[in-house]
């Protein structure tokens, strides 16, 4: 079963063009994996190819992956350990050479790019944050942040000025001369973030950037990440194995299992309409009131004329629920320009929290 493609619903908010897209993306580890694509994509279906590879004992790190990431969206890839998240991300930046497929960045196929061109693209269009930070132990904070600029050949004074801005942006001013081992995990990751942003990339890749941090710091870093994104508007591909993190940050979530895409959809989609048991398993324990926004469960505006409290579309159910009291039977939902686009009653909320509409087995 093919999950619905991303394009369908993510454009609910505003129509945007795809910044990055990939299709038929494969990465197979094994003996000469190229043989599965000897005659291009051919007539064989994805499933046949998967079966053939598994038969030979090969590992499918990424199989027939396809999605689009619109400009300025946060696209989250999530799945269990070993499900191929990092591989997909690394295929997009060509840190891993895909076995087959197409990766388009601004319409340019990266898999056809020469090494020289790839370096150009990485220097100016891409930034990446790593799970265990990937900082250079022999350089200070400021030199680490300035490193990508040094690779471009920027003069020392200029790149240090730029790096100082970045350090300030992530709130590390004062620690410029420290070495990575003198910083806490959270601070180290801030350095990683500052470094990845130093070249003002257009697309921003993050591979489980907060997984190595403890929960409190993690939430704090997520807030900061959202704040930065509001300011910077990058196109983001974010990898995580934490469903709460995914729901919190994502515009679109892509769920993977054993190298294959299981479902792509918006956060409410994933929690309210999981495509199979694997996804349901993930979302089972999620406190829905904390992750669903009112616009995911609201109904048509009820124009009875009664005065209702008005909330924005991005308010969480948790917040909306507190507005109900004895005299309120509904609340109105308004979009950014103040126009009433829907309304919400306690019954709808209860239905949503109990996951009605999802077919239970």
């Amino acid at each position, binding site marked *: 079963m093919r999950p619905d493609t991303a394009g369908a619903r993510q454009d609910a908010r505003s129509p945007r063009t795809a910044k990055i897209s990939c299709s038929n993306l494969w990465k197979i580890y094994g003996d000469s994996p190229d043989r599965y694509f000897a005659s291009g994509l051919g007539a064989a279906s994805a499933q046949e190819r998967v079966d053939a590879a598994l038969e030979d004992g090969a590992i499918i790190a990424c199989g027939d992956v396809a999605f689009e990431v619109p400009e300025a969206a946060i696209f989250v890839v999530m799945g269990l350990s070993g499900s191929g998240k990092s591989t997909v991300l690394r295929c997009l930046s060509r840190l891993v050479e895909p076995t087959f497929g197409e990766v388009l960045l601004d319409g340019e196929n990266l898999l056809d790019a020469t090494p020289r061109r790839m*370096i150009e693209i990485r220097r100016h269009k891409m930034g*990446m944050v*790593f799970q265990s930070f*990937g900082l250079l132990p022999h350089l200070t904070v400021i030199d680490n942040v300035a490193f990508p600029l*040094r*690779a471009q050949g920027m003069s020392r004074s200029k790149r240090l000025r730029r790096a100082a801005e970045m350090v300030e942006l992530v709130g590390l001013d004062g620690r410029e001369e420290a070495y990575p081992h003198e910083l806490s995990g959270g601070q180290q990751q801030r350095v990683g973030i500052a470094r990845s942003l130093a*070249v003002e990339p257009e697309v921003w890749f993050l591979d489980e950037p907060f997984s190595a941090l403890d929960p409190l710091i993690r939430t704090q870093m997520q807030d900061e990440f959202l704040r930065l994104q509001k300011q910077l508007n990058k196109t983001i591909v974010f990898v995580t194995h934490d469903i709460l993190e995914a729901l919190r940050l994502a515009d679109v979530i892509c769920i993977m299992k054993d190298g294959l895409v299981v479902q792509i959809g918006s956060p409410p989609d994933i929690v309210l309409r999981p495509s199979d048991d694997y996804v349901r398993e993930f979302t089972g324990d999620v406190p829905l009131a904390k992750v669903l926004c009112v616009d995911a469960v609201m109904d048509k505006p009820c124009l009875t004329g009664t005065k209702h409290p008005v909330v924005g579309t991005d308010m969480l159910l948790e917040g909306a629920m507190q507005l109900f009291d004895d005299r309120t039977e509904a609340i109105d939902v308004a979009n950014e320009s103040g126009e009433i686009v829907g309304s919400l009653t306690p019954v709808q909320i209860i239905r949503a929290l109990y996951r009605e509409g999802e077919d239970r087995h």
Partner: protein
Amino acid sequence: MRNMALANAVATVRRDVRSALPWLLVILISGLVMMFGREIEWLFDPPAKYLPPISATVEAVMSWIADNFNWLMRPMSQLVEVPMSGLRAALDWLPWTTVTLIVVFVAWQGGGRTTALTALFGLIYVTVVGYWEEGINTLTLVLVCIPIAVGLGFVIGLLGFRFRSLRPFLNTLLDLMQTVPAFAYLIPILLLFGFGPAVGLIASVIFSTPPMVRNTLLGLRLVPTEVRESGTMSGCTPRQRFWWIEVPSALPQLLIGVNQTTMAALSMVVIAAIIGGFDDIGWEVLTRLRKAQFGQSIFAGMAIVCLAIILDRITRAYAMRQLPMASHVGLSLGKFAAGLLAILCFTLGLAWMFPEPLWNWPEAWVFYPAEAINSAVDRFVAANGLLIEAIKNQFVFIVLLPIKIGLFRAVAPFTWGFSLTATSIALLWTVVAVASMVALGYGRWRLAALFPVAFGLLFFGFTGLAWPVVMLVFGLFAFQLGGPRVGLFVTSSLLFLLLSGIWQPAMISVYLCTVAVIFCLLVGGLIGILASTSDTMSSIIRPINDTLQTLPQFVLLIPALMLFRVGDFTAMIAIVAYAIVPMIRYTEQGLRQVSRTAIEAGISSGCTPFQLFWQIRFKLAMPQILIGVNQTILFGLNMLVIAALVGTTGLGQQIYLALSKADSGAGIVAGLGMALIAMSADRILQAYLRRTD
């Protein structure tokens, strides 16, 4: 359920029988050979006329190369001699104060006060005892060798890292470079490059490059993937990524490589003195030793020790400085250079004003009480000679001789006070047979096989066994432990020893090494156990170990020779002194690393302290201890060649003789034999380690 258990038991028995049967066969055949083949000479020492002319062929090939590539090699050796004599002249001309202070400053920059003081006292010692010039000559060779070996090692390591397919080949090459005794390739180098210091240099480069290669490979492999990827994502070109990311990340490991390379270079420079002609400290030690002037050789040996410790501490300090937590930072590069210049000018000026003692240490001030030491040694030996002699003789008669020539020849009225009669021999063998049967009765077939094999070895001795017996026993052992590849390697190594006509000397080497290693295992293991239980013991042992390991092997011969004169016993003591260190180290480390939880689990399940030690701590430490055993064997074989200088027979002596006759064929063959023995022991132990994992 029961059926399964039964089936399992049957399978185990079947497997046991399948492995035990070959042993039965081997023991039977060996028994027959030893009983009826005793008079057949070619079973024990095959005469040369039956053997292929391996060493003569090697000799011919070597001289052909030497004759035909002379035009290439000689100029090359002159080429390396230019910088060497230049550096030597410069260091020789400079006042000793300048050189000393510069070394001290460099030491301080790397490691702070302690390192600086070590350098200061070491160099003052060398000056005061009057070995300045010899010391400088040794140092020159080392200083020229280091950059060559480090550069070469780095490039080779890099190639090995980039081209994965090169690695198996590279590993074998490195094994050979480190296990073929240097004496063996001194001869071909002599042939190719002619007499002169270049020979010592080239031998040192060969010997000291492998540690750099290994550390380069290791360092580059250990660079975390994400660090490497972060470089790529920063838009580095491959070259930028290499120089800005991979090399700096690997730097601490690379510097450890520099430290090991330096120590290897010094060790080899000292050994290469044997060919003479450079008037360095190694030569001094050697000539004094040959004349039995122990006082002089101790003073010269101590000078080598000083140089070794200084070089070790300085290079190690620079390696440590790269670690994240380094405490000593030192000056910035600019200030450091300025400091060097200042010291140079200042000391030169001062020494120019006061040439004595600041430029040259006056002859009259040299403190060199060698004769006093000589007479002290003489007095000591005279006073305790009988006791020393008695200890030595008892050990030789009771332990060394039986293993060398077998109980049946070693037990004689002169040594043991009685001789073996036919009945007592029959009785001994009956006891062994009964013990073996009992073990078999308990289902312990390995023990049952071990009894006759071990006793057979003791009864006939390594040199008294027919070669088919040795081959069968070791071949089967290696095969069962490590599979066909290891079995084949060991058997063909033994075959090489046989065919190249060095079977008897090889067996003598094996015997000497076996005794030394067993001694190391017992004593070293015991010391290691003690050190693991007591912190005081550990802190006493550690500096001794450190010193023993930094000492060039040569120096260890002096005290052994002083007390026990020439012979197998002396050689054994020297080998033990050198090879015991890894055993102590790894035993202590292994025992100390056993986790608290494992010990607590043992205590709570009611182990007695004795059980706790043997069944839990010792068992868990076993992998580490086995690595120690492996190292001990390699160290032992390495030292064996040097011990040949104090008059053992065996392969070491063969190499030594070949060197004095400039017979490159015999030297190379004997050296290769040595390396094959070392590599066989290594393969067998590795196989055992893999099985216990």
